């Protein structure tokens, strides 16, 4: 680890601050990390080098707290293609197509600057996908906001939704689904997780591994400006406090028009075969893309900053290297084919300039105005960045670690209700009538229609969307085949707050079950792990338990984890969000014509309840409204969960069911109502064979894995055979009229319920004026 034996040593530039321990601390490095930097270099780093180390060794870029735990995730399987270490894994989906997908957080920027934060979150995840050689075909988003009437929620909701739409609509990638939740636990730290799915032909996947010393390195896309500097290190790798507003300049600004050009130009350039490796300039921009590509190939790289296209004059090397200006890609070209590539990019009016070359000596070397300004072993910035085995400790009460999600009170039951304004007005003594509870739940922004959100997104561009937002899973056909893909993003922070292991495993199962409700076999997942400050042992414990839960569920369902992202430091002034692992599941439908929708279709059909366990009110929306909740989650039997999913897939494949809808927020009564909301004409239902009569648990519980099916009477026995060992019962029938009747408890007009459901968010925003 001694300094390069070349005679040249990087020089300090005029006007640069001196580098010492104090300066290193100001950059977010620990004392030990600073000493490690000195050991790697055999000298004191220059100011430029210090900046580079600070971003590459930030939690956001290095995964230093999570890396050793993430290794336990299963990432292999018969459908998996593409080696580890690439930006995302890929799965074979049949007929020569592979699917590439990933979900990533943009929580911190979106809280500081909601429109641009969310917009650039979408842009960043799109680049992660097309850099693999896959055309982005669908986006989804998982959003968590504070309580609906928190003073900042309206501003953040409008900004985030506007940003997702403003960017997504302009790049021609449909936003086909997502989830939105409001809870006081996110008052000080919203979550914005952006997902993208891409499709490529098998064998056309691109690599991010540099090859061939002497090959030119090309910079493509937007010019570099001062935006986003230290986005990864200072913003995304630290908690929020009163000074967070001042970090707004660390948020990047998006230009979706350029992104659209970049997508088309890159996909065209990839077809030429002249690209050896390619990576987007995401977090830590030029620095991460160049050092990571070099390190993956066991090679070095040399960059000349004088050739970087700049938005304005006067950027220092420090700024150029750390800028997170958007819509930029770095690629390694085959030597001699630079002009050919430049011509393709120029056709799309994009910059494409050679800024350096691949070298053999494994060093990451940067020049500016003829001077060497940085000279670092490439692996020191990537694979050899510090890895921590942080202490983890189970908290005595869940509430001690986090602002528990509403309704999910801790074992002690004390601290969390106060944190939730939904709970604040409620009292355990108040039990409304079932009909009133149903109306109240349908009116909840967490249960009611999210149309206000998704009607602002283009969900149909590219002409593949068979089922868009508003159902269980989105369904996209693959043109030229009979196949379709189903995708669903899910999270369940209330359950995770009660039990971070069971909650995480249940989230995987729920996402898979939703995909299966559309008739698709779940084949793989990506995850975004949102947690608090990993330097606190209780948070680290939550995280590890979450990873274990995802691992076990993914193994049980044989759905490998092909990609993922970790977002730590989701805290404001010492208050962490509840553990929120977000799961996006992909499924395949062999025959798109067999897809299933959530809605009842034929009067006279049987309404069937299939479930793995009895429901409880733990972590339910009902509990959040009407009662503080001291229950713990039911254990999850992963074998039975798999049985339920297999049964759904088989039922769809054999054409035995007319509808399937997962019981989620609001419980069975809400699900039954939603089944009646057929957009082609509402129907009624008469439910008289409930497993147990009357109780709030049955009508409004959420704890169990439960699905409502409808099927022709003649198919019931065949269906029952598909769900061996799992509770299967005919509970009623679909009716001609517009009334939903559930035993003696509920007798409501479906059109009225639909109106309440439809207006849940819209009316609140209108009322706010």
């Amino acid at each position, binding site marked *: 680890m001694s300094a390069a034996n070349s005679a040249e040593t990087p020089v300090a530039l005029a006007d640069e601050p001196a580098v010492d321990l104090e300066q290193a601390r100001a950059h977010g490095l620990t004392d030990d990390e600073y000493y490690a930097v000195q050991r790697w270099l055999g000298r004191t780093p220059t100011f430029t080098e210090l900046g580079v180390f600070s971003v590459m060794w930030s939690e956001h870029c290095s995964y230093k707290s999570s890396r050793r735990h993430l290794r336990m995730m299963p990432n292999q399987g018969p459908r998996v293609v593409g080696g580890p270490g690439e930006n995302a894994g890929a799965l074979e989906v049949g007929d020569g197509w592979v699917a590439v997908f990933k979900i990533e957080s943009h929580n911190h920027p979106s809280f500081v600057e909601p429109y641009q934060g969310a917009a650039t979150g979408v842009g960043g995840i799109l680049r992660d996908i097309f850099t693999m050689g896959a055309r982005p075909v669908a986006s989804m988003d998982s959003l968590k906001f504070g309580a609906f009437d928190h003073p900042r929620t309206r501003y953040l909701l409008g900004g985030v939704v*506007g940003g997702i*739409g*403003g960017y997504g*609509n*302009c*790049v*021609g990638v449909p936003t086909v689904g997502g989830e939105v939740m409001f809870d006081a636990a996110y008052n000080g730290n919203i979550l914005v997780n952006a997902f993208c799915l891409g499709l490529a032909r098998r064998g056309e996947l691109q690599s991010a591994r540099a090859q061939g010393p002497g090959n030119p390195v090309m910079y493509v896309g937007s010019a570099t400006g001062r935006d986003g500097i230290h986005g990864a290190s200072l913003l995304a790798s630290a908690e929020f406090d009163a000074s967070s507003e001042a970090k707004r300049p660390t948020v990047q600004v998006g*230009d*979706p*028009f*350029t992104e*659209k*050009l970049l997508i088309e130009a890159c996909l065209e350039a990839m077809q030429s075969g002249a690209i050896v490796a390619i990576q987007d300039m995401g977090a830590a921009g030029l620095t991460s893309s160049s050092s990571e590509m070099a390190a993956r190939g066991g090679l070095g790289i040399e960059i000349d900053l004088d050739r970087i296209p700049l938005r304005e004059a006067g950027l220092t090397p420090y700024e150029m290297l750390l800028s997170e200006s958007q819509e930029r890609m770095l690629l390694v070209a085959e030597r001699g084919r630079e002009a050919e590539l430049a011509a393709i990019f120029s056709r*799309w*009016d994009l910059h494409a300039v050679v800024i350096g070359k691949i070298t053999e000596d494994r060093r990451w070397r940067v020049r500016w105005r003829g001077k060497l300004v940085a000279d670092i072993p490439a692996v020191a910035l990537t694979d050899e960045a510090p890895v921590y085995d942080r202490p983890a400790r189970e908290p005595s009460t869940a509430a001690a670690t986090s602002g528990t999600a509403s309704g999910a009170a801790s074992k002690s039951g004390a601290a969390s209700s106060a944190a939730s304004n939904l709970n604040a007005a409620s009292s355990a003594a108040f039990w409304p009538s079932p009909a009133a509870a149903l109306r109240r739940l349908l009116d909840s922004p967490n249960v009611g229609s999210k149309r206000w959100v*998704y*009607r*602002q*997104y*283009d*969900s*149909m*561009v*590219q*002409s*593949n*969307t*068979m089922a868009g937002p508003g159902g269980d899973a989105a369904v996209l*056909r693959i*043109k030229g085949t009979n196949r379709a893909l189903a995708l669903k993003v899910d999270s369940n922070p209330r359950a995770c707050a009660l039990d971070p292991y069971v909650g995480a495993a249940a989230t995987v199962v729920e996402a898979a079950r939703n995909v299966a409700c559309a008739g698709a076999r779940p084949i793989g997942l990506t995850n975004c792990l949102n947690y608090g400050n990993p330097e606190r042992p209780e948070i680290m414990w939550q995280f590890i338990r979450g990873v274990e839960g995802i691992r076990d569920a993914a193994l049980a369902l044989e759905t490998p984890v092909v990609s993922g992202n970790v977002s730590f430091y989701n805290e404001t002034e010492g208050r962490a969000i509840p553990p929120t692992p977000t799961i996006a599941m992909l499924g395949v439908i062999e025959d*798109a*014509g067999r897809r299933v929708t959530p809605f009842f279709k034929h009067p006279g059909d049987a309404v069937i309840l299939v479930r793995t366990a009895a429901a409880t009110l733990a972590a339910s929306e009902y509990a959040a409204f009407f009662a503080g909740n001291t229950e713990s989650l039911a254990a999850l039997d992963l074998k039975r969960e798999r049985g339920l999913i297999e049964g759904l897939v088989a039922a769809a494949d054999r054409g035995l069911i007319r509808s399937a809808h997962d019981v989620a927020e609001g419980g069975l009564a809400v699900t039954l109502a939603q089944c009646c909301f057929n957009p082609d004409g509402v129907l009624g239902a008469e439910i008289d064979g409930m497993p147990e009569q009357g109780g709030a648990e049955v009508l409004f519980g959420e704890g169990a894995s439960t699905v409502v099916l409808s099927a022709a009477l003649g198919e019931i026995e065949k269906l029952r055979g598909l769900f061996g060992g799992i509770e299967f019962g005919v509970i009623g029938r679909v009716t001609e009229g517009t009334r939903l009747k559930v035993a003696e408890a509920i007798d409501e007009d479906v059109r009225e319920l639909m109106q309440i459901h439809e207006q849940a968010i819209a009316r609140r925003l209108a009322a706010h004026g």
Partner: protein
Amino acid sequence: MKWGVVRFPGSLDDTDALWALNHVMGQEARALWHKDEDLAGVQCVVLPGGFSYGDYLRCGAIARFAPIMKSVVRFANDGGLVLGICNGFQILCEAHLLPGALMRNRSLSFICELVNVRIENTATPFTCAARQGEVLRLPIKHGEGLYVAPADELRAMEERGQVLLRYTDAAGRERDDANPNGSTRAIAGVANATFNVFGLMPHPEHAVEAALGGEDGLKIFRSIVMSVEQASAAASAARSSAASSKTPA
């Protein structure tokens, strides 16, 4: 028949229009590049949806200066059929091939949803396969679709029958809550005074397959095919040299 779909930087629904024409309708459609001036002998030019040039400055304001637009204007002035969808409609207004302009939706937000539009005039090449008063279910997806035009211009347009589509409810009634963007007189699509240029905010190319939610958009494309076939049949019957010169061999 031969179709050309213009591809501007930032066009998004160009591939969807090509898919609808080539794969669903079995037509012969090709992409036309914005930097070219050659229309390649097509019989109908489609300006597709999207955000041409990012819609920076104003929707369609930059696209109208693209090299291909010189040819499109010439083609339209010679009586060629031009269909502008969404952003294409905005470009046609900016290029003064259509009257009026499109402003921000009254909700001030982007709207993506299915709407109902009523056919107001079937005596045009774009609507001849539909019935008078027929209601089509088509998707819209735009942030700037509120149609405006000066009052006297509007009056003249209505008198000449240039308003081809109006937002209504499913039963074909005009209602304020069935007007998704606040367009003047619920106007969803207009033609020029010579009825060879048509712009509409809804997307017929996104309503051509039952599996994706509907086929009502086919009515628009079939009308165009029908009118071109009739014109060429009439032309060959009459051996009209003026008409045949528009279709280079």
